[in-house]
């Protein structure tokens, strides 16, 4: 059943829904990158929760006019309006009061959600005996989704993705350095509005599949995971789209295999699994790689300190230093230097003296900026340059 679902073998509708969710995931992942880079990832949490009153109000309005309350485009319009109002409230609170954005986000998301819950109970009161089914918008559901709905979700996702591709340049510039971007004549307000507008569009499109509570995860988790793999914006956007797409695909497919597997949580958990993998194993910023680097770095620092202490006849202050020196055969167990230790210590001391000289010479200013007490000079200068430096050092330089 699982393989069938993953292979899109569960019928036309389930296939459509799965592909729609994948499209949604790609668009959300790519959009989220810009929010994340602008350090405003959690604004999307406010957007997500703030859609609830709009969905329910949309339902009430459509019923009041004698229509079918569950007409999806109507509900989406309501969602967009109230999420837009929520966003405006966040900006207003942040700009016009002393409150910071985090408080504004929390206040808007919880108050709008509360208002939505009040409206939900109003629907229950009016609809006595008939379930409106709006609760599925809380956590998302794809069971019983209509063909047209699945198609419109895929189309909406594709449209957002196209806009992201179109607007990526100004959005990157603004996310990275707003002041510089403004200096280049980019209209900050317009780009900010576009960024938020895209997040809002994704939220509204994905509401039915993932639900108001968890939609934010689609905008946050894939970009954060992608960022761990690369330092280049373009690559991060592509990766985030890929991770989001895979999450949507796996989540929706899994959810189609059994009746009580809610779609939204599964999509979120799929993306979290990809995130966890990235956090651990990404070569650039992953935990394993970073841990190894730190381990090596700490050893380098201790070793260098130990050698310098040896050369200048000073004590060391940490057991690790002594252990490392012994382990490399630089000192004997009783702390007396071996021949190798003496040679290495002399080299470290010469390096230190060369650095000291270099930093006072204007002609080496560029190299001096790379001084960190740790890097051997041979990593920074050519042998010829070192020879020139030794000339300044004078006869005692050779030590």
């Amino acid at each position, binding site marked *: 059943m699982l393989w069938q679902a993953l292979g899109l073998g569960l019928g036309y509708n389930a296939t459509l829904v799965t592909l729609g969710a994948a499209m949604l995931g790609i668009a959300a992942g790519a959009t989220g990158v810009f929010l*994340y880079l602008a*350090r405003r*990832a*959690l604004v*999307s*949490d406010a957007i997500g*929760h703030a859609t609830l009153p709009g969905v329910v109000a949309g339902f009430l309005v459509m019923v009041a006019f004698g229509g079918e309350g569950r007409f999806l485009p109507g509900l989406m319009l309501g969602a967009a309006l109230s999420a837009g109002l929520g966003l405006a409230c966040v900006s*207003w*609170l942040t700009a*016009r*009061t*002393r*409150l*910071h954005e*985090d*408080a504004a*986000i*929390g*206040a808007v*998301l*919880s*108050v*709008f*959600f*509360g*208002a*939505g*819950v*009040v409206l*939900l*109970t*109003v629907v229950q*009161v009016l609809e006595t005996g008939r379930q409106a089914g709006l*609760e599925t918008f*809380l*956590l998302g559901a794809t069971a019983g989704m209509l063909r047209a709905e699945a198609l419109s979700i895929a189309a909406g996702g594709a449209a957002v993705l196209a806009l992201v591709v179109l607007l990526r340049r100004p959005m990157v510039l603004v996310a990275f350095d707003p002041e510089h971007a403004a200096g280049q004549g980019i209209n900050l307000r317009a780009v900010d509005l576009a960024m938020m507008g895209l997040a809002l569009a994704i939220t509204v499109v994905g509401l039915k599949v993932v639900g108001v*509570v*968890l939609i*934010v*995860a689609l905008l*946050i*988790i894939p*970009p*954060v995971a992608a960022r*761990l793999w690369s330092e280049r914006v373009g690559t991060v956007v592509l990766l985030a789209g890929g991770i989001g797409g895979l999450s949507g695909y796996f989540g929706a497919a899994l959810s189609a295999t059994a009746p*009580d*597997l*809610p779609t*939204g*949580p*599964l999509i*979120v*958990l799929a993306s*979290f699994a990809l995130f966890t993998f990235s*956090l651990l194993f990404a070569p650039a*910023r*992953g*935990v394993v790689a*970073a*841990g190894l680097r730190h381990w090596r770095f700490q050893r380098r620092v201790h070793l260098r300190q130990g050698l310098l202490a040896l050369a200048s006849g000073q004590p060391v202050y940490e057991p690790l230093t002594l252990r490392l020196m012994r382990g490399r055969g630089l000192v004997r167990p009783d702390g007396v230097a071996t021949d190798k230790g003496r040679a290495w210590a002399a080299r470290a001391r010469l390096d230190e003296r060369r650095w000291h000289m270099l930093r006072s010479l204007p002609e080496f200013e560029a190299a001096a900026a790379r001084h960190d007490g740790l890097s051997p000079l041979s990593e920074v200068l050519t042998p010829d340059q070192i020879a020139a430096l030794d000339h300044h050092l004078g006869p005692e330089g050779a030590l």
Partner: protein
Amino acid sequence: MGAEFVMLSLTPLVIGVLAALACALPGNFLLLRRQALIGDAISHVVLPGIVVAFLLSGRVAAVPMMLGAGGAALVSVALIEVIRRLGRIEPGAAMGVVFTAMFAGGVLLLEQSAASGVHLDVQHALYGNLESLIWLDGDGWGALLDGQALSGLPPELTRMAVVALAVVLFTAVFWRALVIATFDEGFARTLGLPVRALSLALVAVAAMAAVAAFDAVGSIIVIAMFICPPAAARLMTDRMGGQVAWSVGFATLSAILGYVLAGYGPLWLGYESAVSAAGMIATVSGVILALAALAGPRRRGIAPM
């Protein structure tokens, strides 16, 4: 309205007020530490904590649920910290990753386990059911003096009262240390204050408040109780004591006004049944915040002279 009020409204009202209080107190410190959204994260992860506690203990009981939710809150804070540091990820985004994933896990576990059939269901988890916490034995104001009737009080009330008391005690005892560590963490360290333990304790206390309030108002509306009263109070005064006092006042007002509007508002408009009290409490707290943002004497912050 005496007897009916005591039976149907008194306990939910008291629980609502206590929940709002218990959340607003730690909320003040979270707000000033720019960790308002920690309240958001905590309240979301209460759900998986409760479900896991249920699966492990096999019953819906207060103590395991409290422990489960408290544990989940600490796990989430630790995870956020780990992700933030190891992955060098901005705190907001790290928070978003952790609490959405844990919440999703909680929902999935809930749907998959028998818990949904027993007592918990997803909607309850999202917005609580304050109205159901009624006192069947409370057949009049006299019942408050009747030992037997008192023993029929909903257990949620006792739980909420104990937690509210614990929160008040924590705030009172650690007030001075909390204020110093919140204002100037580096200086607090040089005084020898256990800064890290303090902030963990603050999170744990907030988690406790969130769990106790969970029954009544669910995991999302509780965020309004953490953030809105302290945020509104922040716009009213420039004194720490004053801010906490205002937030307590706003929290109480939201709870009472919200409950009354939800219960009686529709009647006044000619409808039969009430609307969600928890949702209305959040809405009222939002309206109070909006009013404070429009007219609070300290809404703009301070311009240096």
